[in-house]
């Protein structure tokens, strides 16, 4: 079963993150890289991506002619996706375990960020229909 682990945050949260010291950011990234490596070795790793900063986010709708209408205005409270991991695991509990590992990645001063990680199962279109 494939699960997606979503890390989200508000613009304010992202501003806080980019203000971390280089040392704190490096320590954080080292832990996440090690986790990716571990998941690759266990055969559970499917993919991971990080997204650009929320201030570059755009919402698009289609006009009648099909031309895009773009808008970059979001409510302050909006939670933006910052990045995700996709894992292929035997049980839902294993996905939660991996999510908790991401949640304890170190933040400023080495203290775990304790960020909540949203866990969702991935379904194929054919399974949904």
């Amino acid at each position, binding site marked *: 079963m494939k699960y997606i682990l979503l890390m989200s945050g508000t613009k304010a949260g992202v501003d806080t993150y980019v203000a971390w010291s280089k040392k704190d950011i490096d320590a954080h990234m080292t832990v996440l890289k090690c986790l990716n490596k571990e998941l690759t070795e266990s055969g559970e790793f499917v993919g991971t991506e990080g997204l650009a900063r929320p201030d570059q*986010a755009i919402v698009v709708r289609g006009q009648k002619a099909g031309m*895009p209408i773009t808008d970059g205005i979001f409510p302050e409270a909006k939670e*933006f*996706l910052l990045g995700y991991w996709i894992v292929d695991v035997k049980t839902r509990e294993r996905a939660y375990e991996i999510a908790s590992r991401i949640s304890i990645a170190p933040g400023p001063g080495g203290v775990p960020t304790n960020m909540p990680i949203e866990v*969702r199962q991935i379904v*194929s279109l054919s399974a949904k229909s």
Partner: protein
Amino acid sequence: MKYILMMNGTKAHFSEYAKWSKKDMEANVAFMRAFSKQLKDEGVYVATEGLGWPDQAKLVRADKDGTPITDGVFPESKEFLAGYWIVDVESPEQAYKIAARASAAPGPGGASSNVPIEVRQVLGSHSDLGL
């Protein structure tokens, strides 16, 4: 440049979707399948995934000893990711055009669903954040 096109919705939106007629839902799914195929033919397709319903979503943190703590309580206003496409394109404008096509997917009675699609660049590496 890689961009992710995301479809988000509140639980209320998902509940509305679940009430669509079988015919409307089939038309929507057929559109989505054809859309993915078109993106492949155009050479811009990287990936697409659909996510399970929000009522199965969990938020996970770790206990002091590292044990996962799960919680499934979300605010009513929370936007859940329904699914996404990742495309590899030459410009943001090209990504917006593709997003507009996804937004025009048929809804009830075949009318355009006009769903908002959030477009974000996917980072090649963490250093792209400019840190």
